[in-house]
């Protein structure tokens, strides 16, 4: 049968052999399906449950309260993250003055102390008058008082203990913070934290769960990740929970985070991202990059792949018949 003109020209003078595309395809798909079925039966990927407010509030109430008071005090890493959450670009990553993070502005507006603590507490206040009173006191207080209360509470929390599920801490000048924090803790224990975080005018079709994921993104998530060897400096994304296989093909990306000079750089994500983009462009334009496009010739692996062809050519004195 006739081939395209290009194929005809490319294969002029090259002997051919019979080939059955469908047969080869079916054999390979069938073989691979068997391999995949066997692997799927023997090694199932892990399905470790996500970190939930209810679990943290019940099992690690001090960590839960520390997260809440940290966010309330404005110490969350998201408070001054910059775009896409808020406008403050002071901490935005930049390289040579270029900060792509700020190119598109605030697209997912977020004020952590308000959206993660005060707004959920406003819902608790509907059912709990004590919390309503504490919120009123908080809202009427000066910034200095708020800062003093949250700092005193956070410091006391460092020395707090848990007895029969209740957090025991020394008495102190915490203002309305203990009542507010107990309100948050009850919200978590009731399993309503995520619902309160995601609640918006689009209910019941609340499709964006970002806030529920971001709430524990710092110390709580990091401590779980640490126990699972999943932090960035532990080759994070390239493997699954407990060193089970994951997207290992991302090692050229993850490797940079194992090198302290990159990992400790405040602009690491941007630097590594730009390097990966450059590597991708090199790969993409490989056919046109001098020296690099000659590498296969110099490496010589092709001699193994085409050894029969070269032997055949030597046998026929360099000539081939169709």
């Amino acid at each position, binding site marked *: 049968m006739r081939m395209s003109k290009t194929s005809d020209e490319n294969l002029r003078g090259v002997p051919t052999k019979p080939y059955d595309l469908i047969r080869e395809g079916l054999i390979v798909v069938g073989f691979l399906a068997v391999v995949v079925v066997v692997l799927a039966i023997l090694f199932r990927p892990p399905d470790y449950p996500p970190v939930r407010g209810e679990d943290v509030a019940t099992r690690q109430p001090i960590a839960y309260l520390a997260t809440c008071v940290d966010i309330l005090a404005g110490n969350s890493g998201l408070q001054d993250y910059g775009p896409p959450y808020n406008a403050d670009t002071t901490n935005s990553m930049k390289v040579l003055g270029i900060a792509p993070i700020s190119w598109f502005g605030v697209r997912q507006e977020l004020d952590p102390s308000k959206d993660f603590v005060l707004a959920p507490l406003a819902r608790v206040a509907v059912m709990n008058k004590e919390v309503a009173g504490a919120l009123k006191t908080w809202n009427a207080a000066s910034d200095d008082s708020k800062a003093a209360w949250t700092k005193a509470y956070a410091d006391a929390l460092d020395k707090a203990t848990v007895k029969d599920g209740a957090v025991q801490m020394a008495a102190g000048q915490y203002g309305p913070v203990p009542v507010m924090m107990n309100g948050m803790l009850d919200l978590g224990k009731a399993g309503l934290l995520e619902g309160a975080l995601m609640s918006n005018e689009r209910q019941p079709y609340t499709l964006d769960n970002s806030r529920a994921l971001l709430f524990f993104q710092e110390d709580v998530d990091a401590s779980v990740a640490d126990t699972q060897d999943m932090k960035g400096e532990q080759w994070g994304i390239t493997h699954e929970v407990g060193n089970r296989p994951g997207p290992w093909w991302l090692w050229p990306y993850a490797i940079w985070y194992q090198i302290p000079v990159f990992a400790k750089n405040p602009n690491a994500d941007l630097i590594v991202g730009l390097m990966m983009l450059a590597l991708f462009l090199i790969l993409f334009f490989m056919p046109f990059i001098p020296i690099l496009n000659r590498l296969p010739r110099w490496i010589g692996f*092709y001699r193994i792949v085409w050894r029969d062809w070269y032997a055949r050519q030597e046998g026929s004195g360099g000539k081939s018949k169709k």
Partner: protein
Amino acid sequence: MNLTKKLQRSIQKNLTMEDALPTKMPVYVNSLAYMFGVTTLSALVLLVVTGMILAIFGPDWYHVSRAGRFFNSLHFWSAQAFFGSMLLHMATKFLLGAWRDGRWKTWMIGVLTFGIAIFSGFTGYLSASNWSSQWHAVQAKDAMNAMGIGAFFVTTNFSQTLTLHVAFLPFLVIILVVIHLAFIRHESPVKPYPSKGK
């Protein structure tokens, strides 16, 4: 101008039946190194089939059902086979200098497919709705935001990552693979390097 006739003529000229469904191969196509493209394509078929089954029953299915867990495992290993095969395919094509004699378009479409497949696989991990998804979502957002991509691709938004994973990105991958295959068959496999001294 009849566009349909024009397309017919273009296909007849550039991708004949023998190109699309070949019954002969040049003799130099005679190595296991040529198998990785076929295994990549086969793994893609398995990925699509298992992915469609998972899509029919919904994203929660695999958390609550033994059958769902099994199909999720099949999908996972299909993805492993897909990326393993694709990297071997790319490595062998690089080592054969397969972009020679005007085949640069085939190479570039292949690399682009690889790049999009990475994002496709990544959105799969984000859509697994378990601890791994949660951790990778909050970690990866910083990298995406730093590059300015986070303004549009929100790793923490499950519904966005899920729709990207089951619809948009696989569609792109499949379209690019079809174009890649059409170019490969139109041009025929690259000839071996001339012997030394030629």
